[in-house]
């Protein structure tokens, strides 16, 4: 259910000029699509998109990406309107990043503070440094995003 609403890079690519002109500072339009998803780029960063022929695409992308989205250090984007504060991500993350599994199947606690906390009914990142994505050798864990029932969490990096 959550992932259905999210636009994938190749879907985004179809709305872009596909000229690979590099004027936006990245090597290709597909790379620009990835940049849009990670919120490192804005639709208007592409000069061709400002032309009249791409106006409908620009409006659509502006509406989809909105304004002022803040990406957490873990690469997480929280849609506060969708979050119901169910706390599934808090506990799923606890069971994932808060533990370490050995080859024998033994699971031990990692003794690190929880990444998430529910504050005023909405999830908040409290200790980003506990996330496996921020470790010395990062692990691209997606448990919180996968367990979120409303699609409020999106890992964009």
């Amino acid at each position, binding site marked *: 259910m959550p992932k259905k609403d999210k636009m994938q890079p190749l879907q985004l690519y179809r709305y872009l000029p596909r000229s690979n002109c590099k004027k936006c500072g990245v090597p290709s339009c597909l790379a620009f699509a990835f940049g849009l998803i990670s919120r490192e780029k804005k639709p208007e960063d592409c000069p061709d998109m400002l032309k009249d022929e791409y106006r409908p695409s620009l409006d659509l992308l502006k509406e989809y990406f909105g304004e002022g989205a803040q990406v957490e250090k873990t690469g997480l984007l929280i849609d506060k309107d969708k979050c*119901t504060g169910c706390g599934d991500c808090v506990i799923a993350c606890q*069971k994932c990043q808060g533990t370490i599994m050995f080859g024998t*199947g033994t699971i031990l606690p990692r003794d690190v503070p929880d990444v998430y*906390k*529910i504050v*005023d*009914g909405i999830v908040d990142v409290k200790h980003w440094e506990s996330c496996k994505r921020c470790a010395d050798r990062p692990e691209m864990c997606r448990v919180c995003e996968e367990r979120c*029932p409303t699609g409020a969490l999106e890992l964009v990096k």
Partner: protein
Amino acid sequence: MASTATTVCTACSCLCDDIGLQLEDDIIRRVENACRKGSSSLYGARFEQRRSRHLVEGREVGADEAIDRAAAELSRARRPLIFGLDNSSLEAQGAGIELARRLRCVIDDTSSFCQGNLVGQILSGALPSCTLPEVKTSDLILYWGANPHHSHPRHLSKFTIYAHPDYTELGAVRRVTLAAVEVRESETSSVCHRVFRILPRADRDLISAIGKGMAGQETSADGKRVVDLFRKAKFTVIFAGLGLTYSLDNDYLPFIEMVKQLSSWGRVAVIPMVGHYNMRGFNQSLHKAAGHVNKVSFADGVSSGDQFSFLEQVRNRSFDCLMVIGSDPFASLPKSVSSALEGIPRIVIDPYQSATSEGSTVVIGSAVTGVEAAGTAVRMDGAEVKLLPPLAPSRPGDEEILRRVMEKVSR
């Protein structure tokens, strides 16, 4: 002055007891661990525009005058009806039942058109049940006709799958299974390991398919899959939601038969997904006092039946004075039904303004139980939880109001 407190959330029947608060001069500044429903209910207690004031025929009065008028209306009435009490403490419910007994009137709550019958089956021992901490020893959790992510947002993370000690995000072996029987794709079904999609009102068909599958007869594909799931489980907990209740139309016999059959394979427990935080408390209190969970008349001793349900009473205009405590039936009743109540004196005891309190003869603003008033409530699994009000009361509590009304009622 800033302070911190721990409280029990009364937004739903999960009654989460780990809610952290930061307070400043009796105002909540920060709520931790509560879901969106819970934090809204906690913040809402100090939202004065939404709170009820004491009113008599639309005129603002003092609490004493409103209580006097309520008692006078109840004394004058020949066949009053008391409805609600699901959002009140056990103590207030006890006072409400006592008042109904003294007035020799009908008493009912919202459970008569939702989970009351199921709670009744559990209280009478026809269906086995267990407590929420016991769910952590189960190996199959099945939500039937329920979407807790809407009704009880923290249900999965605090009591069931994510709180289960055997649930892990690491490794390939699954020791506990989460399943759902649903008519549509929902938030809960999106995170379940197994989902059984059925047509609306086809729950009875699935139950009979399971029965056939268990008896070794030819059955539907879904029936086979559910039977396989049940066969592997040592302890199954079924959370029965309103979807199941409405589909079975309150006739639980096939479901009870299925649970009995399943019990021969392993332990099975049923927990109703109760909505209001103390609906089960009302059912238990009334069961203890009158032997029935709802729809009770104290007119000639104690009697119970569908004719005493709120809907039937409204449809037949069987009462001449209505007292509603902490409930808003006008928000859910069809206009054709609620218009039948015009001209009947209405007394509303509610912390908040509602469609029911609008235009009522008497409105008595009460304290929000659990936020401003203390008491005890019963969780959906039947466990009693002591409420810890973090704020000072701005109005009298339900129990106090009901006891004061009782003192003044001339019967």
